[in-house]
């Protein structure tokens, strides 16, 4: 069976599965990559920081329902088969992404806008919850037993490549349309484009065959009658679900989302880097690190999955705070600004009247270029009072562009974080597949995966941003959440997990 499948057929299986999964990740991540712009579209203009946090909450809602999608579609996958289930998830994901691109703004329909987006985001989360487990199971059930880590690691690249694709399309669209047009309506294009990608993927997936192990199980009449009951009512299986969650996927989830999502959010929102710079840094980091998914997946076939994954967690725990401290230090231009200004170009002054008041707000903006090649915009909003004259506001430094050496230093630091992602994530599909039997595999492996990634991981930007907003906190305080979760997972994994591989998953 799987052991005799020709090599070119395996790569067809991987290609067809990976393309659909990649597109689903793309759909899922555009939202996060555009959180700031979407926040302005969905909430009142005076919402301030809460617009971003509420948008991140809607983004997080998609993650939170992933475990429910895992249960619903995992059950379907164990009942009717892998192929048709993840075709269905693809349609749901593509449809909801397309409709997010059509939702009117808060200005047009008020709070109906964020509510509709929330509903579509929930559908996205449900669909993704069903997709990944199916694709990983499908590939693993085709792969030879001594190369399961290698072959499933191709599926593992799709999440990061989906993020890469979403960032790339966003940057290209913004550069073509210009910042103002992109903020106005251009942000919808990456969402609308999804429908084209999904149609292509559906066409390819329609040509796929059912997994050989599932087909055999079906032919023998051994398909599970109630996968949910068999997965979670059977103590022997349920305890493995808990172990997979607390000893592996929980820590893996926070490492993934800190290295790739929180890092970009931190650079853009805390360090105030330029929109393009923060995304280019991540794009380069992803491009350099992505091959390591396959490297660590293949290596796990030789040395086992456990210690590779746990090493990734340990390195994250040790190095996150020093890395993010460097991000902060190297983007603090307040001292350099005193001595190293090459030129400063003021922008036209704009004034806005304050409603029901004779006072107005005056915005002055200066583009500052430093001798080391860095630049930024210094924006100051003063109140022009009819009675008290000009009341100066606090100057904000934003849209920072890094000097070239610092830019590449940041690429290196992001690369290192994504390398940790490849360590924890490359082997995990094979690890999960080997924990559970064929007839309840889709259901059993999907739940810990999506709680670990969707809940613990997906909430990293939201919870870390929330923690950093507490009074008395520092910009680095948010990192205690991923560090704490990874530490707990590392301890549980090191003590309770086994490094042995189940060579035969044909049961």
């Amino acid at each position, binding site marked *: 069976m799987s052991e005799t499948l020709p090599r070119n057929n395996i790569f067809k299986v991987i290609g067809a599965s990976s393309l659909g999964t990649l597109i689903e990740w793309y759909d899922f991540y555009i939202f996060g990559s555009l959180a700031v712009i979407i926040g302005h579209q969905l909430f009142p203009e005076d919402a301030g920081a*809460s617009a971003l946090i509420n948008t991140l909450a809607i983004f997080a809602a998609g993650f939170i329902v992933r475990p429910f999608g895992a249960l619903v579609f995992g059950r379907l996958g164990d009942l009717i088969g892998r192929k048709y289930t993840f075709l269905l998830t693809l349609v749901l994901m593509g449809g909801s992404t397309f409709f997010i691109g059509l939702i009117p703004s808060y200005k047009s329909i008020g709070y109906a806008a964020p509510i509709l987006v929330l509903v579509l985001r929930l559908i996205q989360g449900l669909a993704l919850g069903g997709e990944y487990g199916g694709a990983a199971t499908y590939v693993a059930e085709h792969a030879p037993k001594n190369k399961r880590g290698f072959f499933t690691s191709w599926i593992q690249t799709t999440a990061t490549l989906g993020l890469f694709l979403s960032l790339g399309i966003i940057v290209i669209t913004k550069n073509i349309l210009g910042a103002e047009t992109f903020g106005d309506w251009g942000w919808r294009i990456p969402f609308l484009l999804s429908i084209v990608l999904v149609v292509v993927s559906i066409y390819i997936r329609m040509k796929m065959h059912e997994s050989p192990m599932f087909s055999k199980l079906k032919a023998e009449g051994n398909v599970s009658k109630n996968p949910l009951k068999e997965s979670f009512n059977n103590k022997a299986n349920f305890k493995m679900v808990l172990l997979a*969650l607390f000893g592996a996927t929980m820590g893996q989830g926070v490492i993934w989302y800190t290295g790739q999502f929180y890092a970009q959010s931190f650079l853009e929102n805390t360090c105030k880097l330029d929109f393009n710079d923060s995304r280019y840094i991540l794009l380069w980091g992803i491009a350099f690190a992505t091959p390591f998914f396959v490297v660590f997946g293949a290596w796990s076939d030789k040395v086992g999955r456990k210690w590779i994954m746990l090493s990734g967690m340990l390195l994250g725990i040790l190095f996150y705070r020093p890395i993010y401290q460097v991000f902060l230090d190297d983007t603090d231009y307040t001292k350099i600004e005193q001595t190293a200004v090459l030129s400063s170009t003021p922008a036209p002054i704009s004034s806005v009247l304050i409603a029901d008041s004779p006072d107005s707000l005056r915005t002055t903006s200066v583009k500052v270029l430093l001798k080391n090649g860095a630049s930024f915009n210094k924006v100051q909003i003063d109140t022009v009072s009819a009675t008290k004259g000009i009341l100066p506001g606090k100057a904000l430094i934003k849209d920072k562009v890094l000097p070239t050496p610092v830019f590449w230093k940041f690429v290196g630091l992001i690369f290192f974080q994504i390398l940790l992602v490849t360590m924890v994530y490359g082997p995990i599909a094979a690890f999960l597949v080997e924990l559970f039997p064929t007839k309840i595999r889709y259901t059993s492996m999907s739940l810990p995966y999506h709680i670990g990634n969707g809940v613990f991981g997906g*909430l990293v930007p939201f919870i870390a941003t929330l923690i950093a907003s507490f009074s008395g906190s520092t910009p680095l305080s948010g990192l205690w959440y991923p560090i704490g979760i990874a530490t707990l997972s590392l301890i549980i994994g090191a003590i309770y997990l086994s490094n042995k591989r189940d060579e035969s998953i044909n049961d």
Partner: protein
Amino acid sequence: MNTLKKFLGLVWMVLGPLTMTFLFLQAIEKVGLTHTDIERTNTILQWAIILFIFLPISLGLMIFGFYAWKGEYDRLPENSEEL
């Protein structure tokens, strides 16, 4: 190692309710500060979401601890046929 697994099982059992208590206290404190100290960033809805999500997970951690305490993880199945 099995003794350590069992001992830590007690820790996981205690950690579940401790985490929830901590989160509840944080929620009460931070929601109380809304509209004054930290603008509108800590609303009841946001904290309700956090509590709603982490309550079942804390329960799961307690069950995991209970299984560990009972020695369920002393020997792990070596293949999925044992499940």
